[in-house]
């Protein structure tokens, strides 16, 4: 254990942080970086978090949609009030246009001409399996095909990919949360 003035000392057995440095995060981090414990700071500019702009009232956007629905049928549109920021059949391009515009909270919607009808989704056997087995997999993701467990683990993507590799085209996946949840408050 060593203290060297006002700095952190790293030895083979670990790092010693003198009491004098408590609360001086910048100095501690710098010393840890110099000792190779932490990675050096990136030369790139830190990623700026998007501005904290929450969803505003959307009455003007809805009015615009009513007036232009047929003109932009089956397209994605990005709106800021009654101003069209971008449109097209590619959502990726419309998102890019919305981001490029600098508007912090645009409404991006697909203007459906007709809601498509598909066969109903039946997950009754999966739900029954969850009732009987959930206690065995708390904190894990499970992938099921009917009442058959295909894969499980803590990494959702790995669990999903294992199920797909096993030949299940559309697996049911769920994260098994602990049973002592509080009631959901909604929004």
């Amino acid at each position: 254990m060593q203290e060297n003035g006002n700095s952190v000392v790293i030895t083979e057995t670990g790092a010693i942080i003198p009491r004098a440095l408590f609360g001086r995060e910048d100095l501690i981090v710098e010393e840890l970086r110099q000792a190779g414990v932490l990675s050096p700071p990136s030369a790139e500019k830190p990623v700026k978090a998007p501005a904290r702009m929450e969803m505003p009232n959307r009455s003007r956007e809805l009015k615009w949609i009513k007036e232009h629905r047929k003109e932009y049928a089956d397209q994605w549109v990005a709106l800021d009030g009654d101003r069209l920021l971008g449109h097209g059949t590619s959502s990726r391009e419309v998102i890019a246009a919305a981001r490029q515009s600098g508007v912090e909270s645009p409404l991006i919607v697909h203007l459906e001409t007709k809601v498509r009808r598909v066969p109903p989704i039946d997950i009754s056997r999966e739900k029954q399996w969850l009732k009987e087995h959930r206690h065995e997999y708390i904190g894990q993701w499970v992938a099921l095909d009917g009442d058959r467990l295909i894969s499980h683990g803590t990494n959702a993507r790995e669990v999903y990919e294992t199920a797909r590799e096993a030949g299940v085209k559309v697996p049911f996946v769920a994260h098994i949360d602990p049973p002592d949840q509080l009631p959901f408050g909604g929004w």
Partner: protein
Amino acid sequence: MAYTMTFDVLHEYDAGDLGITVPVELTIGMNSTKVDAKLDSGAGCCIFRRELGEMLGLDIESGMPQWISTPTGSFLTYGHDVTISAFEFQLNVMVYFAVDEWFIRDVLGRFGWMQQLKLGIVDYEGKLYIGSYDADTSVDDIVAEIEKDRTQS
């Protein structure tokens, strides 16, 4: 005055469960999965946990950033184009995936999904009636409802 509406589908759910649970299929490109989601008329949009987006191959942060407010604070999400099949209806929806992994809810909200459908709930009996919605004729009603809500609040 009595009002009459017609619906296409009846979905029966467990009224004792936490929230109204709905089986949905999410599709992004060639990847699809079935999950349980909660119906949430208090949510402005559809919001899902980030693991589901990543599972289906998304780079979450490449989407449209959007902060979502709740009674206890705000959290950051990114929007992506997802095909949602629920009940017997399929829609292309801008789904927002939460950045933080502590967000563990999957909810079907209003813009993009609920506003494309008609819903009727008899919660005591665990019955949810669903119908498709003709947006070309009734957006006025939605606007009037939002204006009314705003005036009242």
